[in-house]
């Protein structure tokens, strides 16, 4: 996909593209995710497409996944980065389960964790190229939040990427 190559001015500080080990641009991407709170909980919606540029290459990509007992994560942007985030979350939930103390991570806690992950990656100039929507219900409390690839996060009654 060379037409997406970064055109840099002569005095750029970014360094050569071929030397870079960090994420420069996304390849297989997902489009928007929308979510809203309603009386009984959270509703989240996304299509199942993974696009390769303008081609709809993968047509059965699950861009929303439940995890833990209380939460649902939806992502737009680079699909492989989304899979990496799911990997991190699996480990997080596993450690949480191992305490076996009757407590479990709720959507608010996970939202905070993801914000920190996204922001720290951004600061290293190696972002996870996703916009995430995090929703869930714990002890009757509904929670809906979003995190962008630069670490901007907020909580609202309806969010979309």
């Amino acid at each position, binding site marked *: 996909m060379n037409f997406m190559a970064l055109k840099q001015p002569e005095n750029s500080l970014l360094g050569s593209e071929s030397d870079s080990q960090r994420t420069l641009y996304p390849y297989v991407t997902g489009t928007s995710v929308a979510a809203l709170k309603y009386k009984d909980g959270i509703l989240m919606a996304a299509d199942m497409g993974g696009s390769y540029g303008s081609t709809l290459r993968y047509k059965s990509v699950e861009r929303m996944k439940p995890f833990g007992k209380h939460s649902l994560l939806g992502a737009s942007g680079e699909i492989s980065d989304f899979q990496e985030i799911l*990997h991190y979350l699996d*480990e997080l939930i*596993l*450690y949480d*389960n*191992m305490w*076996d103390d009757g407590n479990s991570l709720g959507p608010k806690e996970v939202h905070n964790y993801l914000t920190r992950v996204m922001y720290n990656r951004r600061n290293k100039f190696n972002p996870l190229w996703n916009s995430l929507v995090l929703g869930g219900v714990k002890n009757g409390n509904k929670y809906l939040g979003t995190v962008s690839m630069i670490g901007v996060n907020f909580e609202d009654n309806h969010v979309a990427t």
Partner: protein
Amino acid sequence: MSSIGTGYDLSVTTFSPDGRVFQIEYAAKAVDNSGTVIGIKCKDGIVMGVEKLIASKMMLPGSNRRIHSVHRHSGMAVAGLAADGRQIVARAKSEATNYQSVYGEPIPVKELAERVASYVHLCTLYWWLRPFGCGIILGGYDRDGPQLYMVEPSGISYRYFGAAIGKGKQAAKTEIEKLKLSEMTCREGVIEVAKIIYKVHDEAKDKAFELEMSWVCDESKQQHQKVPDDLLEEAKVAARTALEEMDAD
């Protein structure tokens, strides 16, 4: 049964003339002084139980967990020096998550037992480390069904149908041998383990104890977890009744 090492027991890197490493044997003594820990393999899973000797009435019940989950599908019960046990559990958790990360599936119980045993053995090879003063009973449920392993301070690990370590291990082993484990479900196993622990508890030497039990079986969806409170209560009641019937004779 005890023998004096005199001179050959100062370091774990020294053999005695009759081929023994005394430091490891002394480590095993630390395990023998701790409360009894039992594990049994039933038809559909593993049950583990610990006799937690209570040092003080001020301790909150349910604290000082002796049985730890290592991954979703397996758990370890520790006897001996509790702090040493925590180290081993931490290492086991780390091995399990690492395996999951690399191979994408939960660590097979056999592999986990080997890694834990290997780690325990490691600490018997260097003079600047002391052996772990704990024995471990490891129970898990993977593709090959439920499995039970025991790891000793020497680093030896074997697979068992039933295992016991700690103060009452001799009496416990005798009791376990009486059970028909291959026909027992975990629900029945929980009751039996409780009965055995109550039976081997020495009322004269140790005053109070708390019973902690966990299982991993079909009923718990192959997840390692504490035995549910209602079943635990049922087991305790059955154990106390069995004890009273015995005393009545």
